[in-house]
């Protein structure tokens, strides 16, 4: 799910190519490798009857024809399976609007979206930032916004990229299947919007805004990280009950009755365990915990927490699959565009326009380049998918040793579909990152042990000894559970002052950004209604730091 670098969350947006001089095609690692695919099949001398369009202009019937051609290649040649597409043509102004509401066609109102809008608008007007060519929403039907400013070639690219690539990924990847309800999301947001609008009418904009502010602050810790439990139906429930009974009967042994019982556990420990069990603790979904148990919240305030939580949950899979989602979409559009050109449906001019745009999107600046801002998910994703295809079709001895399961299996599309369906960024990298890819990117690992007096140390490079370590490190870099701090609600002081206790388990000695933590904690205390304490503990359970907050203006006491 493609996103611009500036949008903090949300739906997919592919970045427009930066100004030309920023994107020399030769620097693109990926573009070097796909040289065979780039051989130009001249359409000028051949049959022109297939050509979809000439020039940059497009109209609705043309979009329709382009889409059919693109979809045909995607479905019939690459074997993809997609939600029906709903293509909506919008203006650049509407694109800015869409940015501000996390790409959704409708959203509830909040000042932070206005801030986002002001920021984007300013950047766009000043020319610091181009607009995305498209935004695609994970829903059924899949909504795809395309800009009216795009040329016909760009529309083709966008339809292939989002309409087929992202769409296939949304529909088939297990994280999305597990977590998002593509059919219901737009209805849910419509409900959220009207609910909050009504709440504003009833309780006042500022009151509702305070709750949303507090909920937004905890949004990153308002998701369930493990799949939700599905309610078992009666039949399975009965079956399991019978299995349990049979198992018990098989193992029955009267001797157990005579075994003397051990000393009873300490009562206070039992009580504490019981209390935590009743409250469902420990709980890492803070918003969920507050919604269910915060003592003073009013019903509508709980509903607001729920809304923010549900929407955060909807976006959670996108954060875990950014690289893969982009890789899938970029690989797809690259393949479709090439096939269109080979079939004589794209002119050479259009194809070159596409290549220019494509190479600037998949460009990976080196670490010492002023443009460097982390690893480009488009570049890495695209290179990985191409690499997997190469390994399937044309493996080297090294690939056979590193990836025996897929090397030379001769079914690149099937393998890729498998990868797209069953992995997320972190697992995909640790499974499929080949030594060749590491060499192509010239990846190296620098370790910083946090001691300012010591130099940084290069502890792995792209050589035989380093491949495994680099692969592991890159995979960890994409591991969302390592990027987000591990914070859990651990206990509540029910007999005393109802203090809520949280723990941050510090990983690698990286503490919370304390100023922000303090502010979030203030929101948390307001929601909880009583004091809150957040302890940062090391892996050996030593307390490293403590943040506390008392409710300032608790909610629910109007």
């Amino acid at each position, binding site marked *: 799910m493609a996103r611009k670098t500036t949008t903090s969350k949300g739906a997919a947006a592919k970045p427009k190519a930066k100004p030309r001089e920023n994107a020399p095609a030769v620097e693109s690692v990926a573009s070097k490798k796909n040289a065979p695919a780039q051989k130009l099949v001249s359409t000028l001398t051949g049959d022109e009857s297939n050509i979809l369009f000439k020039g940059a202009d497009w109209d609705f019937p043309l979009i329709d024809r382009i*889409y059919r051609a693109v979809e045909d290649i995607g479905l019939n040649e690459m074997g993809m399976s997609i939600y029906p597409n709903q293509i909506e043509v919008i203006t650049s102004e509407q694109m800015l609007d869409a940015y501000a509401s996390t790409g959704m066609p409708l959203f509830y109102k*909040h*000042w932070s979206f206005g801030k986002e*809008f002001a920021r984007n*608008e300013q950047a766009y007007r000043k020319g610091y930032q181009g607009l995305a060519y498209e935004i695609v929403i994970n829903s059924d039907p899949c909504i795809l916004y395309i800009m009216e400013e795009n040329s016909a070639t760009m529309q083709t690219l966008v339809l292939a990229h989002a309409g087929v690539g992202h769409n296939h990924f949304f529909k088939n990847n297990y994280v999305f299947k597990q977590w998002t309800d593509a059919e219901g999301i737009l209805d849910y947001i419509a409900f959220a919007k009207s609910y909050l609008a009504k709440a504003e009418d009833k309780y006042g904009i500022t009151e509702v805004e305070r709750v949303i502010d507090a909920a937004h602050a905890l949004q990153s810790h308002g998701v369930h990280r493990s799949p939700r439990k599905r309610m078992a139906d009666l039949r399975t429930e009965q079956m399991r009950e019978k299995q349990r009974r049979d198992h018990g009967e098989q193992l029955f042994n009267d001797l157990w009755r005579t075994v003397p019982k051990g000393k009873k556990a300490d009562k206070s420990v039992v009580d504490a365990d019981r209390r935590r069990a009743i409250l469902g603790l420990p709980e890492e979904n803070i918003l969920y915990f507050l919604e269910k148990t915060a003592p003073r919240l009013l019903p509508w305030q709980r509903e607001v927490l729920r809304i923010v939580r549900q929407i955060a949950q909807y976006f959670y899979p996108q954060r875990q699959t950014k690289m893969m989602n982009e890789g899938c979409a970029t690989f797809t559009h690259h393949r479709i565009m090439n096939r269109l050109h080979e079939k004589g449906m794209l002119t050479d001019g259009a194809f070159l326009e596409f290549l220019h745009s494509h190479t600037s999107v998949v460009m990976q600046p*080196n670490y010492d380049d002023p443009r460097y801002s982390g690893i480009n998910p488009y570049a890495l994703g695209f290179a990985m998918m191409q690499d997997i295809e190469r390994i399937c079709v044309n493996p080297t001895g090294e690939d056979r040793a590193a990836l025996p399961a897929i090397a030379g299996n001769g079914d690149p599309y099937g393998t890729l579909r498998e990868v797209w369906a069953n992995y997320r960024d972190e697992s995909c990298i640790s499974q499929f990152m080949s030594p060749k890819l590491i060499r192509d990117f010239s990846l190296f690992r620098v370790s910083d042990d946090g001691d300012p007096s010591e130099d940084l140390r*290069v502890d792995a490079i792209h050589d035989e000894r380093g491949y495994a370590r680099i692969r592991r490190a890159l995979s960890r870099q994409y591991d969302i559970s390592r990027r987000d701090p591990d914070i859990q609600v651990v206990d509540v002081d029910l007999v005393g002052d109802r203090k809520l206790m949280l723990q941050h388990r510090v990983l690698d000695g990286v503490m919370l950004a304390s100023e922000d933590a303090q502010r979030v904690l203030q929101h948390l205390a307001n929601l909880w209604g009583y004091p809150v304490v957040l302890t940062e503990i090391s892996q050996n359970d030593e307390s490293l730091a403590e943040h506390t907050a008392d409710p300032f203006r608790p909610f629910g006491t109007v």
Partner: protein
Amino acid sequence: MSIIDRRLNPGGKSLANRQRFIRRARALVRRAVHDASAGRSIKDAGKGGDVVIPADGVHEPTLRRSSQGGSRDYLLPGNKKFSEGDNIQRPQSGGGGRGGDPSGDGEGEDDFRFALTAEEFLDLFLEDLELPDMAKREVAGEANFEWRRAGYTTSGSPSALSVSRTMRQSMSRRIALRRPKPAEIAELEEKAAAFAEDDQGAEAKAARDALATAKRRAKLIPFIDPIDVRYRRLEANPRPSAQAVMFCLMDVSGSMNEHMKDLAKRFYTLLYLFLKKRYKRVEVVFIRHTHVAQEVDEETFFYSRETGGTVVSTVLEAMKTVIDERFPPDVWNIYAAQASDGDNTSSDNPKAAALLTEVILPLCQYFAYVEVGDDEDRHPAMMQEMPTSLWRTYARVGEAVEYMAMKKVRHRRDIYPVFRELFSRESIAALGGA
């Protein structure tokens, strides 16, 4: 697959969010607006523009890992010269490999810059300001009334008859007086008809009596009685005059230098913007004076040089003439702002005072006198205490009249505070209470 053209959908979906954002950051934005307006030329004063607010004020906190401390790994592309085990000097910034920080998310803490529209800019600029006595004190003349619905009345012209209200009255009266319905009469008639014409039995008699009674009631109790009739009532409401005229009066004698004129101009500009926001139509009249007064256009008013003595009463007379000729006080809200360095021929002071009290002030909604001073030659404290002759004269007049205000301005930066002071809600409220 379906293609939908959304381009025609109304834009501005983010408007509400934007307004919320501005309201949220109101205090910050207002300060930024005031700072920005200080540096602006007068022509741009009413335009929108960029304002910069500190990012901290609209920061959204999250629970995130710190970008400093702890042991970290950076995975970087594009190795050219390093091999395993090499040491790299720590970058000066201290944050480690640049951009490699996975948790920072590039959350820039730069100041937040965004554009305000002219409307938003003015709203914030003139926020909390109030015009004194906006509606004309005496509203006269047919044109200044508008008719508004004001309930119902029992008398009126037939064209104002309210049928529904009349029928409602009639129905409640009929129910209260138990006027038989046509259906009931029909029923009784049927019953009576069931008996033979000459049947003298008790039952037949009762039926005939009941029918007769019902018929009599229906006749006595009319369907619509004159007391039912209701007419829509209209009330004449005075309509506040939506037009204002602003008189800019300025002394342009030799003693007024460019700096003073600039101060005056700034004050006029603010007043103009303010009036423009409150009235549909604002006319501006420029009258300059030395020992004679003259109505001129804006360019001449501010930029042409003139020499001569200073007789303030002439400008008041000229203003009176213009009012008489073009701006009847019953249709126009009249505002006047006079700027002067305070000089006046001393023999003219009594005349000016009399003109002001007797002629000008009764016509005006508001009269502001701004005494502009020189910035460069800073008077010693003692000198500042010494009011000019015109100030003393006006101060005596102003004491009795609450809608006359007097202020001294020496520096550009004083203009806006003085203006705010004159029109702030509190001082207007105090004025109303006086």
